[in-house]
């Protein structure tokens, strides 16, 4: 009974979300309503110029390593820092042998 009710409410919530997020008559996020391409021109720019400017045919790699290189650099730093912190916290400390 409880499980059925839970599943039914999940389906109901999903349906409400589908109605709310529908671009035709639901909520509209951000500036672009009908002419969203005018405000999100970078998508089309990457698709059109990515191969010629960066060279990789995998556009995601082009964006990650070239257009958004600083982001990847920070991500690598975060990985390094987290592992250094994990090892520093988990290793044997001076008092406990």
């Amino acid at each position, binding site marked *: 009974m409880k499980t059925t009710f839970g599943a039914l409410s999940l389906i109901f919530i999903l349906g409400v979300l589908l109605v709310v997020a529908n671009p035709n008559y639901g909520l509209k996020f951000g500036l672009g309503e009908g002419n969203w391409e005018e405000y999100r021109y970078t998508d089309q720019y990457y698709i059109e110029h990515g191969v010629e400017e960066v060279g990789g045919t995998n556009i995601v790699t082009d964006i990650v390593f070239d257009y958004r290189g600083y982001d990847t650099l920070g991500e690598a730093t975060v990985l390094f820092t987290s*592992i250094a912190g994990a090892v520093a916290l988990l290793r044997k400390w001076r008092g406990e042998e």
Partner: protein
Amino acid sequence: MRPQNSDMGLIVKTMARATIPLIGIFGAYVIVHGHITPGGGFQGGATIAGAGVLFLVAFGLSEAKEKINKNFYSVLEGIGGLVFLTAGMLGLGVVFFYNVLWHKGPVFNGEAGTLLSAGYLPIMNLAVGLKVYTGLVSALFAIALFRRWKK
């Protein structure tokens, strides 16, 4: 209490022996072809790290301690990060993260879509793959090695 026996049984060990090279080859493929097919350094490095974790789980900590040198892995991780930074600085004459190898470099400037193309992208993919692989393996190794809970 039974003696400390951290490795798995025969079936798991045999399966691990068979699948670890395949996982490694697939991860290396994902890294090397990162600039032409889906995937890249991070994904391929995580795949190879999965092989390392499988080794650690299947063969136990004592066997992994002989095969995996933790300090060597730490050094490799630092090298990966430095190579990534250096590849980003190659085109510093124009701007940071300028792909100078692709525009007028001596290597890696073949036709787009081939393996030796895309300027610094293959170098960065290799560096990030090495970094992610060694980093994840050493993190899991540290978690397995330094148990901080009481027996």
